[in-house]
């Protein structure tokens, strides 16, 4: 038998390998096939949503996708961005409703919200419906969707939105809740199976398109809640057909659909297509002056959505997202802090010449942030409401230089303000400065207060344990705080911990002082003032364990009060009360900067709501 020469075998192997590579290259979709559809690739700066079921969603990343597919009764007006917001009516408009809800107060303190659904809303076509044809939205769908939030199957993740609000809903929830064993009842009976047919006193059906919701009392929050994606309307048929997998198989009424489950690659990307049966919903013709000047009304009256397809890419590493924007692979980008100075002149916050010459569009989006350093008001050294301890906290507040933090760590783009209410909410102090401000740096005053508290130059004051989470530039920020407080003789002992450990320390009231942040769930100051309500003390959201009966009394007033000057005045009173007591050092709100390529039209991002993808358009003739 003849052996083939070795060199020949090597050559064959090499040729084979090269052939395989060429074949793979030939098969490789190097040039995407053009489908003639108008589409935009948009980034989501995270690994994307975890579930597309509104009842399970909680993060803004869930929101960004869910609200393209599902819809709520109300929505935010896209082009109405007022400088201050007092009521949900200032910025909301009907989405699934034919008109704004009619609200009437009853003599017994209850409040009735009368809703009228649009007559032309249909669910997406889906196999869960007879013949695969989406049926018309009806009153029962609203009741069903909201009852789901009370279903223990969904672990009450979003029940807080409706808690203590709708007449009979809390009782309905309790009826089906698992009772926890206790010493007196070690083996409680199991709850009955959840029954969606069981009545809720506050849900009153008038017809298939009209219904009333009776609130236990006037709840201002409710007007905001019905715009939140967690209260989106789902189809019972879809929930029953897809069960646990509804999160991957959404069936809504929104402008976009997830055609196939394979169009969502978790952690990677998602393709949403235009809902071919979407009702006639038009691009808005109402706008605030700034938005008018920006030419954002050019598409007014056009049928939504304007794009045939949106391709969402989920980015966890910022550099990759940034590079893809440079390569024009994505239409817009949220500017990561480390790239701010590539795109903007730090001093003026204007685009660099290179970017503006290239027609890049820029938008600054203020966030409803409350970034602060909190105190445990039950701490024996720093807590309490007596003069001595209050002065220590006031001194600390006066020693911290938030403007320096803003310049050093946030490129100077944050809004520094007094109190817990960020702009543009009702109660935000004029120019961010409250009349009784304890905002630093004012070292002279800080030293005076410290001396009056019995700790001249900090002598005799023990080291303060300061808990803050690791990550980002927290270590550097903490060093700045140590230095700033050292100027008045106060020593910080930093505890850089994981976020879960930070939460644990706060919940167990172990953290004397802690770095934290709060993002408002809806633009009403009540949401932020709830952080100081004594019934919310740790492990609730009142991480400071702030407990002042007069504050509580005012809080209970504002949650049921109609927006107006009287309510605003009480809110300001509460804000100033908190500022004087200094349960936190603060505050800051971030501003997020977005960039978009010139081919993207109607670009007006927001992080208060995310269903604005339907308004986006592209200039198909522009280079991509």
């Amino acid at each position, binding site marked *: 038998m003849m052996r083939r020469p070795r060199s020949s075998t090597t050559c064959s192997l090499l040729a084979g390998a090269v052939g395989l*590579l060429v074949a*793979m*290259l030939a*098969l*490789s*979709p*190097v*040039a995407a096939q053009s489908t003639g559809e108008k589409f935009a690739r948009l980034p989501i700066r995270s*690994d994307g949503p*975890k*579930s597309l*079921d509104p009842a*399970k969603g909680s993060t803004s990343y869930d929101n960004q996708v869910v609200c393209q597919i599902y819809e709520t009764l109300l929505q935010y007006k896209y082009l109405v961005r007022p400088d201050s917001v007092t009521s949900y009516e200032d910025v909301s408009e009907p989405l699934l409703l034919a008109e704004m809800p009619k609200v009437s107060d009853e003599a017994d303190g209850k409040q009735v919200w009368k809703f009228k659904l649009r007559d032309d809303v249909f669910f997406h076509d889906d196999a869960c419906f007879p013949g695969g044809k989406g049926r018309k939205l009806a009153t029962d769908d609203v009741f069903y969707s909201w009852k789901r939030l009370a279903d*223990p199957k969904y*672990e*009450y*993740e979003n*029940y*807080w939105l409706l808690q203590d609000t709708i007449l009979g809903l809390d009782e309905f929830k309790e009826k089906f*809740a*698992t009772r*926890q*064993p*206790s*010493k007196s009842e*070690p*083996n409680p009976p199991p709850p009955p199976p959840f029954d969606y047919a069981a009545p809720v006193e506050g849900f009153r059906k008038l017809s298939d398109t009209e219904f009333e919701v009776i609130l236990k009392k006037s709840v201002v929050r409710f007007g905001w809640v019905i715009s939140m994606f967690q209260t989106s309307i789902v189809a019972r048929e879809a929930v029953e057909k897809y069960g*646990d*997998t*509804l*999160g*991957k198989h959404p069936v809504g009424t929104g402008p976009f659909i997830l055609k196939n489950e394979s169009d969502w*690659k*978790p*952690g*990677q*990307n998602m393709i949403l297509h235009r809902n071919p049966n979407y009702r006639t919903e038009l691009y808005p013709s109402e706008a605030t002056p700034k938005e008018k000047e920006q030419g954002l009304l050019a598409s007014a009256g056009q049928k939504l959505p304007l794009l045939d397809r949106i391709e969402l*890419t*989920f*980015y*966890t*590493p910022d*550099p*990759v997202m940034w*590079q*893809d924007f*440079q*390569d024009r692979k994505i239409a817009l980008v949220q500017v990561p802090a480390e790239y701010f100075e590539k795109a903007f002149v730090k001093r003026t916050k204007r685009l660099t010449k290179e970017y503006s010459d290239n027609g890049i569009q820029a938008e600054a989006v203020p966030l409803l942030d409350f970034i602060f350093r909190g105190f445990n008001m039950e701490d024996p050294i720093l807590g309490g409401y007596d003069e001595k301890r209050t002065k220590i906290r006031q001194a600390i507040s006066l020693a911290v230089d938030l403007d320096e933090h803003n310049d050093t760590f946030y490129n100077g783009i944050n809004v520094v303000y007094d109190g817990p209410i960020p702009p543009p909410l009702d109660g935000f102090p004029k120019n961010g400065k409250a009349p009784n401000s304890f905002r630093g740096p004012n070292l002279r005053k800080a030293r005076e207060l410290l001396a009056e508290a019995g700790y001249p130059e900090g002598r005799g004051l023990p080291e303060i344990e300061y808990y803050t989470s690791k990550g980002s530039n927290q270590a550097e920020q903490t060093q700045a705080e140590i230095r700033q407080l050292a100027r008045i003789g106060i020593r910080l002992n930093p505890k850089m911990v*994981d*976020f*879960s*450990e930070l*939460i*644990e320390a706060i*919940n167990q009231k172990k953290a004397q002082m802690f770095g934290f942040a709060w993002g408002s769930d809806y633009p009403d100051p009540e949401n932020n003032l709830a952080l100081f309500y004594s019934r919310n003390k740790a*492990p609730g*959201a009142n991480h400071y364990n702030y407990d002042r009966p007069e504050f509580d009394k005012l809080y209970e007033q504002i949650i049921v009060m109609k927006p107006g000057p009287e309510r605003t005045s009480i809110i300001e009173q509460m804000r100033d009360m908190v500022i004087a007591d200094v349960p936190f050092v603060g505050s800051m709100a971030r501003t997020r900067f977005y960039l978009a390529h010139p081919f993207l039209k109607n670009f007006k991002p927001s992080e208060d709501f995310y269903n604005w993808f339907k308004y986006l358009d592209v200039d198909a003739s522009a280079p991509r």
Partner: protein
Amino acid sequence: MWSYVARRLLYSIPVYLGIILIMMGALRLRDPVSAYLGKNATAETALLKKASMGLDRPFLPIGIEDPAEPFGIEPIVEVGRVGFYPPLRTQYVEFLWRILRFDFGTAERPYRSWQFESDNVGAKLADAVWPTLKITIPALVLTATIAILVGLLSAAYRGSVLDKTLMVLVVLGMSISVVVFIVLGQVFGSSWLNGKLGFELFASNGYEPGIQNWVKYCALPVIIGVVVGMGYDARFYRAVMVEETSRDYITTAVAKGAPRHKIIFVHMLKNAMIPVITRIMITIPFLITGSIVMEYQFRIPGMGKLLIDAIVNKDFPIIQTFTAVLAGLFILTNILTDVLYALVDPRVRLA
């Protein structure tokens, strides 16, 4: 040999049980539910989440002092204040039973990821394996082949310019952070190159299944993996080969006039196979687990990215299962390595 394998497997059982016990205990040092739910979770939500994962049940079937507090389940037998629980209802035994059946969730018996509540843990792991293997297997084969070749040549020509040049190159590869290579790869190997070519040869990030997409999405990570990984391997293989060059059998072969290439590629390579195999075998579990940095930076939905995402999002079921699978793989790989020793070197006995 089979009796040896059976014996090793048997000996490994207590080791594995111990690993799982320690791992599960460690994961429960801090409450996984409050870590996952974050700052605004209600106590009710936390209890339901705990119950969904069985975290409200005893960890071990021993040492329960009060059945109602804190676990709140009914004991089958109560002796004084000590309750006896059916072992299968305890977290440890239940999880072992799951591993034994390799049951990480089915449509009938779901075992859900916490972050992706529509997905079973098993399905998430299965989905992540292939993208990882598409990177790690080519990278391992190429790295090992090139590194062995470099090691052999460097050892054979020790001290020469060739040796020094090869070593400088491979050390350069391993001395620079993989992140730098990734960034350079994305900027020059993808953006710049694609701009020059006029089409997208290598994607800077992302992943699409299908062999036809391999070059676009996987080639760049593989190339970077080889460049970074080769230094460690080549230096190791060189050291092994250098040691072999001073052996008597090499002297004998030279004395008998065997050709140089035969000495290097036949005699030396064959006798150096044990450390080579060890080196390759210890990387096998990592073929499955993937490279966290590479997958994260290239957004490849493999096992490494799954793990890091699970850690970031406190996805307890994924972390627990992933760790258990990884531990099992290590044990199996160790046994396989020992068996391979015997196959390549008759002097090694499987006693």
